[in-house]
C-alpha cells in the first residue's frame, strides 16, 4: 500500500484529493486510450481537462470514481489507494460525477426522488435525505421544482437538476463532464454563477473556453496516444 504524501504540484501545502499515477486504459486490447497518465487534484483547485475528442477525458473521470478499471497504474483518492469496487463506494460518495447527458442521470418520476437518491444510498433516513435534497435544489435555484417530472423539464433545467442530484451527496470534489454542452447563454451564465460559489475542488471537461476562463485555476492538456 502506497501512502499518500501530499501534493507535488502545489508544493505539498494543500491536501491531495485525487491522484492518478501512470494510469493506462484501453477499451479494445492494444488500443490504449490513455497510457502512463499522471494527474493530481488538490484542495480548492479547479482544473480544466482539455484534449482532442477521443483523448480519453471522460474515461479519466470514470476511472477516478471506479466506474472503469485501469489496465495499469494507481488510483488514489482521499488519501487511500483504491483498487476494488468496494474501495470506490466511499469515493463515489465524496467525488460527485456529473455526466454529459443529464437524461442518463435522471430516472425517477419526480425531481425530489431523483435528488434524494444519492443521500439514501449514503444511508441517510428518508427525512434527512429530504432535507439534503431541498438544500441542493436551493443551491441550483430550483426550489419549488420538487414535484415536477424531471423527464419533462427543458434541457437546461435537467442539467441543473442533475447537478443538484450530485450536490445533495455533499461531495468534496466535483467531476464535471461537458457541463455546458447544449446550454443557452442564460442557463450557462446561471451555471457559472452556481459553480463559482461552490467550495468544492473541481475537474472540468469543456470545449467552451469562455466558460473555463471564468472558473479554472489550472489546465491539464491531454495528448492522444
Amino acid at each position, binding site marked *: 500500500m502506497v501512502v499518500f504524501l501530499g501534493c507535488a504540484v502545489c508544493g505539498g501545502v494543500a491536501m491531495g484529493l485525487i491522484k492518478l499515477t501512470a494510469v493506462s486504459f484501453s477499451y479494445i486490447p492494444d488500443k490504449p486510450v490513455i497510457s502512463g497518465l499522471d494527474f493530481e487534484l488538490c484542495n480548492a483547485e479547479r482544473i480544466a481537462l482539455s484534449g482532442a475528442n477521443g483523448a480519453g477525458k471522460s474515461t479519466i473521470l470514470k476511472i477516478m470514481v471506479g466506474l472503469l478499471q485501469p489496465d495499469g497504474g494507481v488510483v488514489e483518492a482521499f488519501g487511500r489507494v483504491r483498487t476494488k469496487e468496494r474501495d470506490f463506494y466511499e469515493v463515489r460518495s465524496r467525488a460527485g460525477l456529473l455526466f454529459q447527458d443529464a437524461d442518463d442521470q435522471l*430516472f425517477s418520476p419526480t425531481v425530489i426522488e431523483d435528488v434524494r437518491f444519492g443521500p439514501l444510498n449514503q444511508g441517510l433516513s428518508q427525512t434527512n435525505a429530504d432535507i439534503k435534497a431541498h438544500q441542493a435544489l436551493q443551491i441550483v435555484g430550483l426550489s419549488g421544482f420538487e414535484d415536477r417530472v424531471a423527464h419533462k423539464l427543458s434541457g437546461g433545467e435537467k442539467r441543473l437538476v442533475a447537478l443538484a442530484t450530485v450536490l445533495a451527496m455533499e461531495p468534496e470534489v466535483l467531476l464535471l463532464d461537458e457541463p455546458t454542452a447544449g446550454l443557452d447563454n442564460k442557463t450557462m451564465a446561471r451555471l457559472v454563477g452556481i459553480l463559482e460559489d461552490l467550495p468544492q475542488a473541481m475537474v472540468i471537461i469543456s470545449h467552451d473556453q469562455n466558460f473555463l476562463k471564468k472558473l479554472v485555476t489550472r489546465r491539464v492538456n491531454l495528448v492522444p496516444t
Partner: protein
Amino acid sequence: MKGVDGRVRIIAAVLFAVVTTACSRLDILTAIMFSAVLLAWFARLPVVETIKKLLSMDGFILILIATLPFTTTGTHWFGFSGFTASVEGGQLAMEIFLTANACMLSFLALVAAMPHPAIASGLRGLGCSKNLIQILLLTIRYIETLRLEYQRLRTAMQARGFQPRNNLHTWRSYGYLAGMLIVRSLDRADRVLAAMKCRGFRGSFPTVAEDAKLTKADYVFLWWFFLAVLFVVVWQWG
C-alpha cells in the same frame, strides 16, 4: 453450411426437434446428440460460448433431472438415507437431458448462427406475418441502442453510490429503472415513427427482394437431412 438458405435451415431445425422429441431410445438419442455436435462443428459455433449456453440451459432442467430418478417407480438402481432411485427414472432423466441439449445445439447451429436479417427473411419466406417480421427486425436493430441507454442509466446510478441490497430502496430504484427504460423506449418509438413518416412512410413497408430460388447446395443439404431423419425413424420405429 454458411451458404444454405434461411428457410431450409429453419425447416431443418423444426424437423430435428420433432424427431428428437419423439425418440425415446437412449442409443438413438446419443447418436442424435452426436449429429447435433457435428452440425455445430459445420456451423463453426464458438466452442466456449456454446458450452456456456448449454450449461445455463441445463440449469433450468437441473431440478427435473435431479428429482426424476427418485420420483419414478421401477427397478431399484441405488439408494441412500431412505431415498431410492429407479433405473427407469434414471433413464427418463437421461432422455430429457439428451433431447434438450441436442435440440438446443441443433437450433444454435441451424438458426441462431445465421446473420439476424437472414433469420427474419427466412421466416418471411416461410409465410410468417409481415408485421411480425418488421417487429423482429426493428427489435434486433434497437436492442444495442437501448442496451447502451440502460448501461448509461445504470452507470449514473452507480456513480451516485447505488449498491444493490435487500431493501425497498433497491427494489423501488430497479422498478423506476425498468419503468424509465419503457418510457424512453416508447419515446424512441415515437421518434422512429416520425423519421419513417419523413421518409415517405404511409403505413406500408416497401417490399424488396423476393426470396431467392433454392440453390443446388440447398437441395443437397435438404436431401442429406431427410436421409438422416429417415434413418432415425427406421431405427426407432422400424
